[in-house]
Structures are given as structure tokens and as C-alpha cells.
């Protein structure tokens, strides 16, 4: 559905001003009714007009405030995820032709990059005079974790980002949202935008906040709509505070939703519509499934009347959609769409009867609780061990995190298969890799299958 232009987050907020709405996190709250005459950016907001702005705020609340103020005002907003490494920031700023940065007023701005405007962000909001005419279609740049190297930079607009969001109908009850996600990534940003486009409030999980504390806070805030990955939801299912919320709507996304988790959530929250959604930063929101079953109906393939077309090419899901990103940023960036406008998601599908099921990522990328693992990166570390001849790292299906990293290892001739050797390999990985990348299961095998092309056979 096309949106009337110009449209900014401030316009969306203004449409439902005066309801006392807020974004709440652990110990802090951002009121949403005050943006017409208050700011988080001190006196610098005026100077950010038309600029390409790196948004590196201190936390989710600061980020939300700066997004609301900058959308329609800046030329481009680069939304930095919380785990962006300092070494990637230089490349990100260069590719984005950034001439301004918004940073946490409690800290120091990053050194070594020249910006024309350096704007500290702080809360609570402070009074601001004058009115702003937010007229630009600001470019939103989201970063996706490249498995190696610098992050990929994906260009959206507010129109592509809110394409899947339908406004609350006038008589409908207010939706109060909560999410386990961070709003600085696509999945969490979708929930922030749903909250802003609606009439309710939003509850975010604080950095380091336990699942119990978050559920108790969400329950007290009267949350009706809540989203997270299947891994987040399995932690809720194992938590005695699970009944502190009584949602109308439970949304799973970001990983494959399995039948056991869907059934357990429906049993725990009998009043709730339990839905699993498919979305990616590049392809946008693809679809939502709420029939209580894993996978999605094969009837979703082809052209649908909601502006989304899907097909399967060589086993992988491709999506053409008005909600997809426009392109990757950067002169040397690869194309985002094929010749017919479809985005290749890299998510592999198998069709059984009238149902499509996700079976993992192409190239063997392993998704451990929402965090991606490139098998080659882990194999490279294992293969450094002097006793190892070759290794194959692959996903092992897991009901808690969706998948775990497992390694098949071929030893050099004459090396004894000892338990201590497994421990050495695991220890070597632990010293060089993030915890979710370390093989949870190591198995010694006599040989590894190789394809006709001479590569390790990764599927099957």
C-alpha cells in the first residue's frame, strides 16, 4: 500500500498525541507526546537538517528519541546496532558519506573520523523552541552482520519499513507492545514502528535485564502484543514469571518456529493469537502465519494481493515486495534484487504436501538463537590444531536455540582419538571465537564427503 508523502515518524506520532503514551525500559521512560516542542539533541537539531547522520546513541530510549527527531529532517540515518565494533565504524561512516554523528552525551564521540556536526544525545527531553517542517523522505540505513568483514548496509525508507503495518482501527482496543528484540535491528525496529503507528505504549527489555524482570515489567505495563525469537520464547516457557503477562498476540520471528514451541505457547496463553512471521532486513516483512502450525501454506507462493510475491529458486525463498529494501549502500555493493525484482533470502525451503518448511540457511550458515555462525570460520580454527586433518562444521537442530554448532573432525593418520583431544579442540575454539560459535558437539569421523567440485559437501 502506498503511503501519502511526506510522512515522518513525527507525523505518525502526532496522529495519536495526547494519549500519555511512552516507551518504557528498565528504570526509565520516554514520553511520546512531547516531541513537538522538546528534544534529546540539545541545540544541535537545527544543524542536522539534510545531513547523513550516524546514529550511535547510548541505549534504545535515546535511539528512539533521535529517530523520531531525525526522520524527515536528516537526509540519511545510519542506525548502528548495539554490537557494532569500533573498527567497522570508519568504513560505515565512509560508505554512508556521513557528515554528522549523534552519540551518547554520557560518553565521548568516536575519535578518528571528521564530522561537521557532533551532536550529543541525552534524556529526559528538554524544551525546544520553533517548529520543524519535516519534509524529506529520509533514507534509513540498517546494518546486517556480515559473517566476515564490514557489515552490509541496507537502505530503506519509512515507507518500505511500515509497509506491513496496518493502522489501529478507530474502535479497536489499544495495543500495548513489548519486544525482546533491540530496536536498533530490523526485527525490533518493526515493533517500535508498530507502537508509534498505533495508539499504545512500548515496553523494551533493558540491557542485562533478566527474563523474569522483563516479564514482570511487561505485565505491569499492561502489554497486549509481544514479540521475540523462538529462542526468547523458549526461555519464557521455562520461566515461572511467564504468567505475569496475559497477551492477546504473541509473535515469533527471526528463527524457524517449531511446532513444539507454537503448541506450548498456545497452551500457556490460551487467549492469545500465536503467530510466526517471516522477515529479513533485506526482503522486509514477508508474511505472518497464525494457523498454529510450523511452516507456511504453499498457497503463499506466487503473487498475492498484498503486494508481496514469493517463489522458490533452487531451494531458496525469493521475495518481491514493496517492503523490501531499496538497495545496498556502497559503490562496490552487490545487487539486492534479481532481474525480476526478487530478493534472494538464502533461506532454504522444502515443500511437503501443501506446506512449506524452512530447513536452514544456504551455505550452511548456522543460526544459534538468532546469532549467525559461518561454518568456515569455525573450521579454520579447528584445522589449526596439529592433530586435525580436516573438519566439517554444521548445524545440529536444537529445541532451545533452534540450532547448535556441531563439528565432524578427521584426524591425521596415526593420531589417537582421545577425549582430551576433543577438549583441546573445543578450548582452542573458545579462545578465539564467540561462545555461540564454539562447537557444542565434536565427533571424530574417518572421512568427509566431498562434492564433484572438490568442496566439502555441506548439505545432507
Amino acid at each position, binding site marked *: 500500500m502506498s503511503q501519502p508523502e511526506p510522512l515522518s515518524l513525527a507525523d505518525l506520532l502526532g496522529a495519536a498525541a495526547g494519549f500519555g503514551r511512552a516507551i518504557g525500559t528498565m528504570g526509565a521512560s520516554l514520553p511520546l507526546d512531547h516531541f513537538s516542542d522538546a528534544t534529546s539533541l540539545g541545540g544541535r537539531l537545527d544543524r542536522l537538517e539534510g545531513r547523513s547522520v550516524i546514529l550511535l546513541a547510548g541505549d534504545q530510549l535515546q535511539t528512539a528519541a533521535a529517530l523520531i527527531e531525525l526522520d524527515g529532517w536528516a537526509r540519511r540515518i545510519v542506525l548502528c546496532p548495539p554490537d557494532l565494533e569500533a573498527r567497522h565504524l570508519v568504513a560505515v561512516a565512509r560508505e554512508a558519506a556521513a557528515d554528522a554523528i549523534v552519540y551518547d552525551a554520557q560518553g565521548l564521540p568516536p575519535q578518528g573520523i571528521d564530522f561537521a556536526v557532533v551532536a550529543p544525545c541525552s534524556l529526559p527531553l528538554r524544551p525546544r523552541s520553533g517548529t520543524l517542517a519535516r519534509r524529506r523522505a529520509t533514507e534509513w540505513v540498517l546494518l546486517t552482520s556480515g559473517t566476515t568483514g564490514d557489515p552490509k548496509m541496507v537502505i530503506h525508507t519509512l515507507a518500505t519499513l511500515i509497509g506491513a503495518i496496518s493502522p489501529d482501527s478507530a474502535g479497536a482496543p489499544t495495543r500495548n507492545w513489548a519486544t525482546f528484540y533491540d530496536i536498533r535491528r530490523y526485527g525490533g525496529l518493526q515493533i517500535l514502528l508498530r507502537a508509534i503507528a498505533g495508539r499504545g505504549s512500548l515496553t523494551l527489555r533493558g540491557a542485562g535485564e*533478566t*527474563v*523474569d524482570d522483563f516479564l514482570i515489567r511487561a505485565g505491569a505495563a499492561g502489554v497486549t502484543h509481544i514479540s521475540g525469537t523462538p*529462542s526468547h520464547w*523458549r*526461555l519464557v*516457557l*521455562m*520461566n*515461572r514469571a*511467564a504468567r505475569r503477562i496475559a497477551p492477546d498476540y504473541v509473535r515469533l520471528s527471526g528463527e524457524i518456529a*517449531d511446532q*513444539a514451541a507454537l*503448541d*506450548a505457547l*498456545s*497452551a*500457556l496463553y490460551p487467549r492469545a493469537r500465536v503467530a510466526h512471521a517471516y522477515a529479513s532486513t533485506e526482503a522486509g516483512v514477508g508474511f505472518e502465519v497464525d494457523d498454529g502450525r510450523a511452516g507456511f501454506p504453499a498457497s503463499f507462493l506466487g503473487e498475492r494481493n498484498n503486494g508481496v510475491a514469493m517463489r522458490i529458486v533452487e531451494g531458496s525463498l525469493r521475495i518481491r515486495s514493496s517492503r523490501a529494501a531499496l538497495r545496498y549502500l556502497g559503490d562496490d555493493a552487490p545487487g539486492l534484487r534479481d532481474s525480476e525484482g526478487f530478493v534472494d533470502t538464502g533461506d532454504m525451503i522444502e515443500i511437503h504436501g501443501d506446506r512449506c518448511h524452512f530447513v536452514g540457511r544456504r551455505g550452511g550458515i548456522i543460526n*544459534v*538463537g538468532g546469532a549467525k555462525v559461518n561454518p568456515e570460520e569455525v573450521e579454520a580454527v579447528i584445522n589449526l590444531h596439529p592433530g586435525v586433518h580436516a573438519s566439517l562444521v554444521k548445524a*545440529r537442530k*536444537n*529445541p*532451545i*536455540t533452534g540450532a*547448535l554448532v556441531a563439528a565432524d573432525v578427521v584426524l591425521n593418520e596415526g593420531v589417537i582419538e582421545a577425549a582430551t583431544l576433543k577438549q583441546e579442540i*573445543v578450548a582452542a575454539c573458545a579462545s578465539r571465537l564467540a*561462545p*555461540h560459535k564454539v562447537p*557444542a*558437539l565434536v565427533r571424530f569421523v574417518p572421512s568427509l564427503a566431498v562434492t564433484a567440485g572438490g568442496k566439502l559437501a555441506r548439505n545432507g
Partner: protein
Amino acid sequence: MSIRLTIISQIQQVAAEQKKTLAPLADDLPLLETGLDSLCFAILVARLEDATGADPFTTADGARFPNTLGELIAFYEHVAA
């Protein structure tokens, strides 16, 4: 080894590998207060599947997930029975 002992020893092993400090293990201890995180539980469930041949998290039919250590042990004893 009994299922109870298998589970306890696997919990201790995973905690040691992942450098987590365990709370004193008792049946009424909530699982999320044991000191294990999501990744630890994932590893535990995979190891228990290898040790017992069962993965009740996947096979249990619309069942309630266990909240305490005692419920986790019963969860596995139930499928083994």
C-alpha cells in the same frame, strides 16, 4: 546411571565448560536461576539427547515446558518411562 544423576552431571559439566557458576542444585530451583544461560541449556539438551536417546522438548505433545530442576528431571523421566 539414573536419569537424575545423568542430568545433574551433565549440568555440572556444561557449567564448567561454559565457565558458569552454578547455584546449589535442588528440585525447586527455577531453571533460569541455576546460572545456566540459553546456550548452556541448548548444549545440555543436545548432550542429554545423546545420553538418553530422548528429546522431550521436541517430542512432548503441546506439553508445558519445565520451569524448575525437578520438573526438568521429571520431563526426561516421563519420556524414558
